[in-house]
């Protein structure tokens, strides 16, 4: 029989957490209550004796100075309603997990398999809501302010209902009871096109018809059929094979639009063909600039781009988006975004230590008063949740936030954009070898470390390759667990320095399928035994194990003679590590379950078989009129209006909550000036205490220009980032760039009738990226694109304004020479530098031929 411990602040002491909820209810929902008290509820399903329960109540769960607590009783008093919120089965419960460790320590009794602690929270509400008629208001509070129904459940009880429930469990135990079919099924692809398309949609494969047909053709190949039959596999693909292909070929992983052949017609009617935006504009930029700089170490092919910091250290940088998950669960989506990009950097080269985070969010106005379409949250809630997620993820991981922005535009109502960036440091040499060189050798063992696998995050890669729709899966939502990841990261860096692995890869989108699939490209194949994978709970189908995006995992390749030392160190660091198979040179990715072969895919087809897209883009410039400025004498009110506009005003409330000084390396912070509350241009850190060299990080983002011209949207973003770096003391020639594209669906179709225009906007944007970066001498060292940022349910369609985040990193020779943004002394003279900005007033001095 599970037991319950309830803990709250002693009567008479203030309850800041409750007060904070009370303020939020008033501000966000307009519900004013007299009092809100928060009670932590720990449900312990571990068969503890009454004496043991009393011990953990007193010694673990209760702060004797300020808290009171009860076992198997109700603590709340003087309230009208109680709302208790807990997690749905299978959702990551970090507090529950830590509590279990605490109980084991306190009682010196390890938790047994099947035993667990579940955390829930009670909100005792008093005032305004009294009778049964107020129950709907309580439901609204729960749904709109306290819980997210995708990951949590709640129960509302009035004081009178609670009378008979003293100490009862209000919510059942969140135990996963659902079992997936453990069988592996063959899926018939010998079906008409319409059914192929339906199959892709129904299984959430997010593959286009011509891609489904390429798979169909592969399985019809007589050689493939012969090989499959001799391997004991069905002629038709198994479910896991189809899922692996869909993940590997997803827009998210393969960047099909950026690699497509595009027939482009410009505004004058001139036609040309762009064969891969990536090659033509992104890679070409870096290739050209690479001739001028000597500090590029590893670009484009690893988890993050790597440049030289000094003779002893290299610097890695990466930014990612986590838009779709953040739309469904702002907190979970965002925390997973930040800890996810941390893993990209941890997985760059032989493993980098994360030393900085950046965060840029795009939302609709938090003061939006219109109707909220189905499945969307109010922008205010999205802002709060996303901010909280990034804050918790960064702070708990001990990685300082050094730069970011919050941008507002009405069309981000359809999908918020959540850009998370991370920089990392790695010794130039690790175990005697250049640290950027990595690769699994045939015979190396496949080892998964960190968290366990659950159903969370299944179909994340394919889901983010679609617009947000009615059937968007709840399982695509995950909650990050920064502490499990921190433990793993500490351990892996220790193992790195001992030379215990040959390759490291992040289990991000696509999970094992992605990491093993990518790592196997070097060795030439892999053999995975999925029954060995550690699971959070039983009942996952083999394909779910391979595709799950459950967080906090990294995959490593480990030479057999190092495996004992690796596993031993993992045990001593309390990190789970499991051998799942072997890297091979068979030319195939093969999966087994309980000894039976369930997947065998040619590496070549898997990675290079996706057919090229052929797309059409037609650019028609919008007809716009130049704005005219009224001839006013007093512009003070206008200046105040600009200062108070959402895109300009201070974001201190939010930024203050990020730890921006952990690691002790900060030089120029987010807050500058006499009162430490003014803005700054770029963040500067000094990552190596023994050296005065530094890194400046800045960003540029200008979505409001997109409706005018995406070329200048891009150009201005680059220019903004570069000016920020220069302003703090950086220099051209020592700046690297990252491009993160977020676009509405640019493929012409019934649901996207203006696809040709949106694709043309993308072409123009990429052109600007290329021209400006080449002109500035900025190599692009990494980047990402997210191409389906639309919302469509019923007749409502909202497409985000095309947006690119440009992140710039400048190496600073001496941090003591950097400059903060604030004016320093009376009498100092103010100059404007650069011709363009004042061209209207000083036409004779205009020299630049580039548009401002």
């Amino acid at each position, binding site marked *: 029989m599970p037991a319950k411990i309830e803990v709250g602040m002693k009567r008479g002491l*203030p309850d*800041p*957490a409750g*007060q*904070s909820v009370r303020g939020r209810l008033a501000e966000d929902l307009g519900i004013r209550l007299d009092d809100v008290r928060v009670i*932590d509820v720990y449900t312990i399903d571990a068969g503890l004796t009454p004496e043991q329960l009393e011990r953990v109540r007193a*010694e*673990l*769960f209760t*702060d*004797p*100075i*300020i808290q009171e607590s009860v076992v198997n009783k109700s603590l709340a008093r003087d309230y009208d309603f109680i709302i208790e919120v807990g997690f749905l089965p299978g959702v990551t419960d*970090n*507090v529950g*997990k*830590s*509590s279990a*460790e*605490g109980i084991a*320590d*306190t009682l*010196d009794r390890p938790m047994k398999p099947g035993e667990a602690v579940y955390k829930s929270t009670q909100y005792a509400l008093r005032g305004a809501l009294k009778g049964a008629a107020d129950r709907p208001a309580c439901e609204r509070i729960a749904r709109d302010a306290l819980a997210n129904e995708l990951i949590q459940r709640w129960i509302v009880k009035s004081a009178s209902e609670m009378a008979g429930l003293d100490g009862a469990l209000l919510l059942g135990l969140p135990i996963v009871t659902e079992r997936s079919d453990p069988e592996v099924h063959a899926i018939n692809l010998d079906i008409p096109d319409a059914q192929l398309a339906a199959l892709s949609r129904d299984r959430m494969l997010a593959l286009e018809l011509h891609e489904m047909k390429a798979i169909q053709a592969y399985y019809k190949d007589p050689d493939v059929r012969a090989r499959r039959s001799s391997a004991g596999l069905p002629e038709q693909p198994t479910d896991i094979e189809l899922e692996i292909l869909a993940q590997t070929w997803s827009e998210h992983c393969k960047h099909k639009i950026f690699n497509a052949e595009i027939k482009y017609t410009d505004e004058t009617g001139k036609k040309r063909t762009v064969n891969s935006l990536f090659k033509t504009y992104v890679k070409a930029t870096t290739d050209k600039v690479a001739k001028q700089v000597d500090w590029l170490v590893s670009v484009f092919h690893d988890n993050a781009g790597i440049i030289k910091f000094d003779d002893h250290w290299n610097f890695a940088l990466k930014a990612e988006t986590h838009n779709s998950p953040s739309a469904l669960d702002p907190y979970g989506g965002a925390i997973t975004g930040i800890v996810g990009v941390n893993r990209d950097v941890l997985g760059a080269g032989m493993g980098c230590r994360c030393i900085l985070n950046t965060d840029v969010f795009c939302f609709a106005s938090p003061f939006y008063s219109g109707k909220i379409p189905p499945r969307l949250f109010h922008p205010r809630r999205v802002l709060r949740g996303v901010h909280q997620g990034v*804050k918790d993820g960064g*702070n*708990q*991981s*001990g990685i300082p936030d050094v730069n970011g922005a919050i941008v507002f535009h009405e069309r981000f109502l359809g999908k918020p954009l959540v850009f998370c960036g991370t920089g990392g440091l790695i010794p130039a040499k690790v175990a005697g070898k250049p640290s950027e060189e990595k690769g699994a050798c045939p015979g190396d063992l496949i080892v998964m470390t960190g968290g366990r696998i659950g159903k969370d995050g299944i179909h994340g890669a394919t889901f983010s390759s679609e617009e947000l729709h009615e059937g968007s899966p709840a399982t695509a939502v995950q909650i990050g*667990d920064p*502490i499990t990841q*921190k433990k793993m990261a*500490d351990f892996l860096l220790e193992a790195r320095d001992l030379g215990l692995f040959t390759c490291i890869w992040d289990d991000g989108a696509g999970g094992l399928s992605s990491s093993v699939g990518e790592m196997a490209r070097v060795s030439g194949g892999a053999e995975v035994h999925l029954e060995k994978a550690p699971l959070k709970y039983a009942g996952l189908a083999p394909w779910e194990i391979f595709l799950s995006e459950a967080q906090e995992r990294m995959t490593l390749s480990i030479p057999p003679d190092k495996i004992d030392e690796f596993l031993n160190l993992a045990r*001593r*660091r*309390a990190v789970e590590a499991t051998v799942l198979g072997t890297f091979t040179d068979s030319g195939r990715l093969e999966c087994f379950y309980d000894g039976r072969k369930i997947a065998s895919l040619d590496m070549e087809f898997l990675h290079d078989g996706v057919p090229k897209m052929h797309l059409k883009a037609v650019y028609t410039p919008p007809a716009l009129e130049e704005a005219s400025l009224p001839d006013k004498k007093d512009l003070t009110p206008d200046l105040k209006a600009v200062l108070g506009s959402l895109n300009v005003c201070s974001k201190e409330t939010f930024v*203050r*909550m*990020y*730890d*921006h*000084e*952990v*690691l*002790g*390396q*900060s*030089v*120029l*912070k987010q*807050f*500058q000036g006499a009162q*430490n509350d003014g803005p700054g241009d770029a963040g500067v850190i*000094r990552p190596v*205490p023994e050296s005065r060299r530094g890194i400046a990080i800045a960003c540029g983002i200008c979505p409001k220009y997109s409706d005018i011209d995406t070329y200048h949207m891009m150009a201005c973003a680059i220019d903004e980032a570069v000016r920020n770096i220069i302003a703090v003391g950086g220099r051209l020639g020592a700046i690297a760039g990252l491009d993160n594209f977020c676009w509405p669906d640019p493929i012409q179709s019934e649901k996207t009738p203006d696809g040709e225009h949106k694709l043309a906007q993308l072409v123009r944007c990429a052109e600007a990226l290329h021209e400006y970066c080449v002109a500035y001498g900025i190599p692009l060292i990494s980047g990402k694109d997210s191409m389906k940022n639309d919302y469509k349910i019923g007749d409502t369609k909202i497409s985000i304004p095309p947006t690119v985040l440009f992140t710039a990193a400048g190496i600073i020779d001496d*941090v*003591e020479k*950097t400059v*903060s943004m*604030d004016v*320093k002394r009376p009498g100092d003279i103010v100059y404007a530098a650069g011709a363009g900005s004042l061209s209207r007033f000083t036409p004779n001095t205009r020299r630049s031929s580039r548009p401002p």
Partner: protein
Amino acid sequence: MTVRALVLTGFGINCDAETHSALSRAGAGADRVHLNDIIENPGLLDRYHIFAIPGGFSFGDDVASGKILANRLRYKLGAPLKKFIADGKLVIGICNGFQVMVKMGILPLFDGEFIQEVTLTNNDSARFENRWVNLGVTPGTRCVWLKGIESLELPVRHGEGKFIPRDDAVLKKLYTNGQVALRYCQPDGSPANGQFPANPNGAVDDIAGICDPSGRVFGLMPHPEANTFRTNHPQWTRKQIPQEGAGLQVFRNAVQYCKAT
């Protein structure tokens, strides 16, 4: 003699690198040591003169900040740590490390027993905040870590830093024993009197750090290891700031103390 310092790591501690760096630059031979390695071999502690529990989010601050790590230290290393202190050695806990220390009762350590007498809990704002604060060293404090220091500017970065003693008797005893080491104050040195943001969390009596009756065991919410370079100071581009950040002296004092005894 080389003064040796052990900097604790593991389970979400995350200021170990800069604490290690600060102790090294203060002249100590410092090592980062994983908690499990000490639990496996408590004799390790004998090699060190200083034991540092850095800041971070041990166990995610789940249940309450520092609580789970506090219990683990108390149950698994209680006796060796008592001996460490009885041997005249030094202990510091910063931010999460301070939270760990008060919750395991290693501070205020009135009678040599690990009993929780004070707590650190949710800021009045109910928010985690990162901001710089002014600190005054309490005249007459026994804290050896603060010897010769009158005031300090350091960043705070916490959501649970509000200091609360069990009762007035505990508070009085802390003062009588010279255990109130560090208090938040206004930029001009006058008391913060609970005023936000000078007192960033609502701490009783503006208390930011306390020590044990010997002055060798010290815990504080602000981060001395995050102000060890001139350029760490938020006003370094505006004011004359000494090349060495003021926080480093805290660690120098500890190393000096160990050398002298």
